[in-house]
């Protein structure tokens, strides 16, 4: 409903008689009216005050009604005010021109009271509703924008967290790799001290001195070798985890082998048979990212076997093919499959079926993020049946589809 007392209407007409009639009709309804007898003043008022509706004569000395209408429609401040033209004649051309320059309606003179009132009211209502809709739309847009921003921030935090997880895993891997060489170095040093303290070499004789010298030389060579192992480990990991974004040429087979090797540094895979059916494929793409994806998927399959200690045949099969430069990689296992309710959720962040100590729930999320965002590819998961020696097992298949085949 329109609150007429709060509705301000501007009347622009050079004919005092017409003005008077329109004023009478509208004021009697309670509208607040302001009038202008010439177009210059009318334009000035329209631009400097706030009106809910404008009634505008077409033919006036000076600026005509169409020009005023065009000006008001081009001004953001006044463009939403509905303008109704007042025309003398009911001429089609005039009416069309009025609509073309932005008028919403027309009223022919002399005024018919009921028609004038009805049209004014209709356009006020329409304008009010349009304004409401616009406001609503703005609110909605702002809400959507806020939510999108929130999600983006959350995503960023998640990615940071998964990066920290990878870093944690990398450090754990290095620590694991370093354990034996560090122990060997420490033992070699304790060994040298022991020989000295127990006087195993008679340094007073030339023979004893020579033997001690030979012994020390040998020990130093050993220690050097252990240190080389430490250093190689760091280089290996730096090479694999360096955030290198350049695309490189590489052999898929090679990356698969490297990924398996890296994974085996951390966990004992000996109970699982790994079958590779990989075509010789040369790719161009993000090598390290692909390796991270493979490590995560293989680790996931490995974890799935955790509760299957009674199962004799445990297999992970890695298949790869290059079909029209699209690389399809399949990772299958026979570890029992994934519950159908759980299946759609496995790429969600923090979703995990594993015990807390085993999984952060970020592994598969990271995998899908890397594939979709960094590699512009797709990953699909489904339950499959897996046959070994005529025995059928349930299992899971991850299917990666990425570009980059050469």
């Amino acid at each position: 409903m329109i609150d007429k007392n709060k509705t301000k209407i501007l009347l622009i007409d050079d004919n005092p008689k017409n003005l008077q009639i329109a004023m009478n009709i509208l004021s009697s309804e309670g509208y607040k009216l302001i009038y202008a007898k010439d177009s210059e003043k009318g334009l000035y008022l329209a631009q400097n005050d706030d009106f809910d509706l404008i009634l505008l004569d077409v033919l006036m000395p000076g600026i005509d009604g169409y020009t005023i209408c065009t000006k008001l429609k081009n001004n953001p401040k006044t463009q939403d005010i509905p303008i109704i033209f007042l025309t003398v004649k009911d001429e089609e051309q005039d009416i069309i021109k009025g609509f073309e320059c932005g008028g919403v309606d027309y009223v022919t003179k002399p005024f018919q009271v009921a028609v004038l009132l009805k049209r004014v009211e209709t356009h006020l209502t329409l304008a009010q509703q349009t304004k409401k809709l616009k406001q609503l739309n703005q609110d909605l847009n702002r809400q959507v924008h806020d939510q999108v921003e929130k999600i983006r921030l959350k995503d960023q935090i998640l990615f940071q967290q998964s990066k920290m997880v990878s870093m944690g895993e990398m450090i754990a891997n290095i620590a694991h790799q370093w354990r034996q060489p560090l122990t060997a170095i420490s033992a070699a040093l304790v060994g040298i001290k022991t020989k000295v303290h127990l006087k195993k070499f008679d340094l007073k004789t030339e023979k004893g001195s020579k033997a001690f010298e030979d012994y020390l030389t040998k020990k130093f060579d050993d220690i050097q070798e252990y240190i080389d192992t430490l250093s190689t480990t760091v280089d290996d990991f730096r090479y694999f985890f360096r955030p290198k974004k350049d695309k490189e040429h590489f052999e898929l087979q090679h990356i698969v082998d490297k990924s398996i090797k890296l994974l085996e540094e951390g966990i004992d895979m000996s109970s699982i048979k790994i079958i590779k059916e990989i075509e010789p494929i040369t790719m161009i793409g993000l090598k390290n990212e692909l390796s991270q994806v493979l490590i995560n998927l293989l680790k996931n399959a490995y974890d799935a076997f955790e509760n299957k200690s009674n199962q004799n045949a445990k297999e992970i099969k890695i298949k790869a093919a290059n079909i029209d430069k699209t690389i399809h990689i399949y990772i299958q296992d026979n570890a029992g499959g994934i519950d159908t309710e759980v299946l759609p959720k496995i790429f969600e962040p923090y979703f995990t079926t594993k015990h807390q100590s085993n999984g952060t729930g970020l592994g598969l999320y990271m995998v899908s993020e890397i594939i979709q965002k960094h590699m512009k590819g797709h990953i699909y998961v489904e339950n499959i049946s897996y046959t070994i020696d005529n025995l059928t097992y349930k299992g899971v298949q991850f299917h990666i589809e990425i570009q980059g085949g050469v």
Partner: protein
Amino acid sequence: MLDYCDIFSKCEHLHALYVEDDTDVAQEVSEILNDFFATVTVVEDGEDGFEAYKLFYQNNNHYIDIVLTDINMPVLNGIDMSKKIRQLNPAQRIIILTAMHDPDYSEELKNLNIQYIIKKPIKTKDLLLTLSQASSNIIR
């Protein structure tokens, strides 16, 4: 103050079995042990360790004096081997060598009543202290 010669005099008549799967570590540690003990038998997994343990008994009519073992090994790990040994000889002196990054075996070690633990990487003081304690008052 720990004295190498004191420990040597305690150990020089004793026999040790050392189980470790990493060849480098096995090489270095067995060199130290060889400087202290009369004999050192080195094997690379828990199953071979248990076999060597039984064989020593067959040949010598008494159990070997000290068993030193790593935990993480293929076939049979150090904990399970220690369980089997303790079933034969509850008084067996066992020294476990373990890395800090190994999974937490403290509960199992406590249940097995293993008193001697050397952390890897090896510190001279730890090794000497443990050898000194483990070789004291051995009764065959």
